[in-house]
């Protein structure tokens, strides 16, 4: 008879990483569902099934937890964005590029996008949080650009146009996602076709 191997006991470092990850995930869910203000440490602990003491051992300040959550969300989103653009953006026709924008729009319409917006809004009136998020946000555009240039349409733009175009599309889709949580909303695919045409019109070779 085969003897079942006793499960390997997790090391302390593994347990620690696991708890921190559970807490970050619970923070994302709580802010997404309840908003920044109502996502109290108590609420987060309940969702993660971790004691308040446990939380503060890993994250001495609520702000540390928020930063960990944003970092996690950020890496996740960038990974998905790179995936999406890499998979879809093979050509530079309006149809192909519109398809990329439609999937980015659908991706950003998830409640998780709202977590970013909630934290950004909170950071405006909270200098400590703003400072803590600073390093992450400083690299924000470069990271998105690195993922987006997999699309030949983005790659063909001058660096300044890449910056302006990506920001324009990002703001449009972010705010559209927010509106859609407040008012009845019909997605406007035609708008995305037009934004795709704008992107294509910015080809630096055409404009040289």
């Amino acid at each position, binding site marked *: 008879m085969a003897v079942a191997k006793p499960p390997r006991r997790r090391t302390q470092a593994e347990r620690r990483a696991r708890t921190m990850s559970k807490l970050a995930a619970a923070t994302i869910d709580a802010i997404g569902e309840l908003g920044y203000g109502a996502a109290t440490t108590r609420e987060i602990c309940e969702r993660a099934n971790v004691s308040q003491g446990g939380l503060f051992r890993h994250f001495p300040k609520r702000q540390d937890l928020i930063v960990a959550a944003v970092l996690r969300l950020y890496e996740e989103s960038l990974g998905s964005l790179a995936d999406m653009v890499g998979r879809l953006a093979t050509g530079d026709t309006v149809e192909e590029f519109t398809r990329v924008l439609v999937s980015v729009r659908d991706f950003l319409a998830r409640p998780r996008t709202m977590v970013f917006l909630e934290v950004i*809004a909170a950071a405006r009136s909270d200098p400590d949080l703003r400072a803590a998020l600073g390093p992450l946000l400083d690299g924000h555009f470069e990271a998105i650009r690195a993922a987006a240039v997999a699309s030949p349409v983005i790659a063909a733009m001058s660096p300044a146009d890449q910056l*302006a175009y990506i920001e324009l599309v990002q703001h449009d889709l972010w705010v559209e996602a927010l509106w859609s949580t407040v008012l009845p909303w019909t997605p406007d695919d035609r708008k995305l076709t*037009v934004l795709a045409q704008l992107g294509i019109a910015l080809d630096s070779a055409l404009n040289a």
Partner: protein
Amino acid sequence: MLPEGSSLTVISGNAVVTRPALYHRTVRDRADRAAGTAEQIITAAAEAIAELGLRHTTMGEIGRRAGMTDGAVFHHFPTRLDLIVAVAEAVLGERVASARSVITAPPPAAAATPVHRLSELRRLAHEPPMRVWVEVLLSARTDGLLRARLASLLAPHVDALHSLAAALPTLVGMSSGARTSWVDVVRNVLIGEAFTAGVVPGGVPQRKVELLVVLAGVLAAQPDGVPGPA
């Protein structure tokens, strides 16, 4: 207190008073005073929200800024929600009026370019009232009561923005569908900027404004408003 039987509604700082003629004089004076006070409270609340965020804007804080007790604030706005809705309405009306004056003002001849007008509009997005609006919008996401109240309040302002846009020289001749898409993009981009300003490092605002003008060109090239092949 207003005498029984009279009612007072404050809309964007304009008082609408229903009263029996008998009370003409006193009620009128009191109503004017009440409207003035309500307006003061709305202004104080808007300032607090822009500065502290909606979350930290308590009735006490608003009262302090308006120079009265929070009891006095509650006398005019029975709930915090009532006050927030009044602030949202005042701020929306004010922003639409500001946009109207930018769009309809004859610019100096040298500056009469579409980029110039849009840059002026963009400036509006960075002023405190826009921050207030962003806070309210975000808060409505997780606050069903606020969301329900905003729904009925928004439509006329959205309509006003769209008819204003029709007056922009850049959009003349564009189909109404195309114009709607353009106005939505511009509005979203400006709200997005108001959202991220001071927190997310800024990009190239001038170029972004230029891209919005290029976008209008792309749309204008489609007379029926339906994008054709590139």
